[in-house]
Each structure stands twice: as C-alpha cells, then as structure tokens.
C-alpha cells in the first residue's frame, strides 16, 4: 500500500477519520426519525388524505424547520454516499473529480429547489 496521507494524500480522497462515518449515522438517524414523524401524521389523521391535509402537514412552522434540517442532512448524507462509491469504483483522479463536481452541483441544486418549495408554503 502506497503512502496516501500527509502531503501524499489523495486530493479526491475523504477525511481519513471518524467524522464522515459519524455524520452518516447522525444524518441517517435524523432522516429515519423524520420518516416516522411524517408517517405518523399521514396515518393518524382521520379521513382520506387530500391536498389540504397533505399541505397542512408541511405548512406547520415546526415541520418546516424540521424538513429544512432534513434536507440539509440528506444533502450531506448523499454526498458522503456517492463520494464513497466514486472512491471505490472510479480510480482516475480527473474523472473522479469531474463526477464529484457533478454530484455537488446536482445535490446543491436539488436542495435549493426543495427548500424553495418548502418556503413558499
């Protein structure tokens, strides 16, 4: 195994430590919690689900704030995930960097769009 730390570390590598591993667990846990909270609101309400009820769930201020946090958590969770996939399967540095840049643009654009929808409710 060649040296890949210090000044020899791979530019398109990761953080070589606990941080991302822990972040992946925390963001995943938050999203799981959000899923349960959302499901509970959908299932526990009475009557068939229509527009009013569905939009009403997201228009509550606390739900907006929580959903905002979940979108940010998702952004970081997916970034770590796809970056790990690229690190496993894509070895040429230039191609990996290109894919990483594409992923960042893709994810930040998606997060911006989702937050925009949320904020005009």
């Amino acid at each position, binding site marked *: 195994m060649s040296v890949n730390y210090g000044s020899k570390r791979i530019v398109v590598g990761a953080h070589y430590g606990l941080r991302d591993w822990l972040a992946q667990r925390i963001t*995943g846990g938050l999203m799981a919690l959000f899923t349960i909270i959302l499901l509970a609101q959908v299932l526990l309400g009475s009557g068939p689900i*229509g*527009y009013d009820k569905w939009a009403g769930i997201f228009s509550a201020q606390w739900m907006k704030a929580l959903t905002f946090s979940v979108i940010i958590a998702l952004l970081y969770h*997916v970034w770590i995930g796809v970056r790990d996939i690229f690190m496993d399967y894509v070895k040429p540095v230039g191609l990996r960097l290109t894919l990483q840049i594409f992923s960042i643009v893709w994810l930040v654009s*998606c997060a911006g769009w989702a937050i925009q929808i949320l904020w005009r409710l």
Partner: protein
Amino acid sequence: MSELAKKRPEFRNINAFKDLTTYRLPPAGWVSILHRASGVIMFLLMPFIIWMFDVSVSSEISFSKFKAAFNSGLGFVPGAFIKLVALALIWAYLHHFIAGLRHLYMDVNHAVSKEFGKSSALVTLTLSIALTLVLGAKLFGLY
C-alpha cells in the same frame, strides 16, 4: 492443501460482466450491494422526487396534476410507467431505510456475530420486498 489452494480462482482486475455474474453473495452481501444500488437510484431520481413534492404540496390545482400523472400519464409518459418508477423508489427507500437501521443497530450494540449478520440480512431483504409488494399492490389499485 497446496493442491486445493492452486485450484481456487484468483480475481485480479475483475471483469464486471464475466466475473460478477459468477459471484455467490451471502445475504449480508446482497443487503450491502443493494444498499448501494438503492442509494444510487434515489440520487439519480432526486429531481423526480422533488417534482412530486412540488406538485403535491404547492396548490390544489397542482395536486390534481400530481394525481393525474399517476392515473392518466404526464405528456407522452404513461401513468403506469410513472407508477413503476414510484414503485422502484418505494423499494429503494424501504431497503435503504431498513438496511440503515440494521447498520445503526449493529453500531450501537457492537456485539456483531456471523449468525446475526445473516439473520438480520434475511429480515432486511424479506421485509423490504414484502412491504414493496404490499404498497405496490395499493399503488396499482389491487385493493
């Protein structure tokens, strides 16, 4: 022993089409690779997910557009295809969710055994597929 060792196939620089098809993965291996695959599916379909969020939540009119997309299609895309894509997303989410909880449980407990790895992997696969079938039947109006 050396005779046996010689006969074992060596995989160096594997060929994705020739070698991957001969791999026999244990259940935990299937959960692992499907965790990855389901993540990629959701990553690539993210604009579709946000579009569904947009039209379902923005207004009464867009909500009916959302429902119509599943029943009578959207533009040249038939409704059944949209339902199929939604079903793929349902499976991807369920698998990723359950496999993720499995990860968290193993991390918290950190008493990991080979047996638990296998049994929990089988539970993950069974549960995600069963729930996908139940929700898929609902989506396609079987009940």
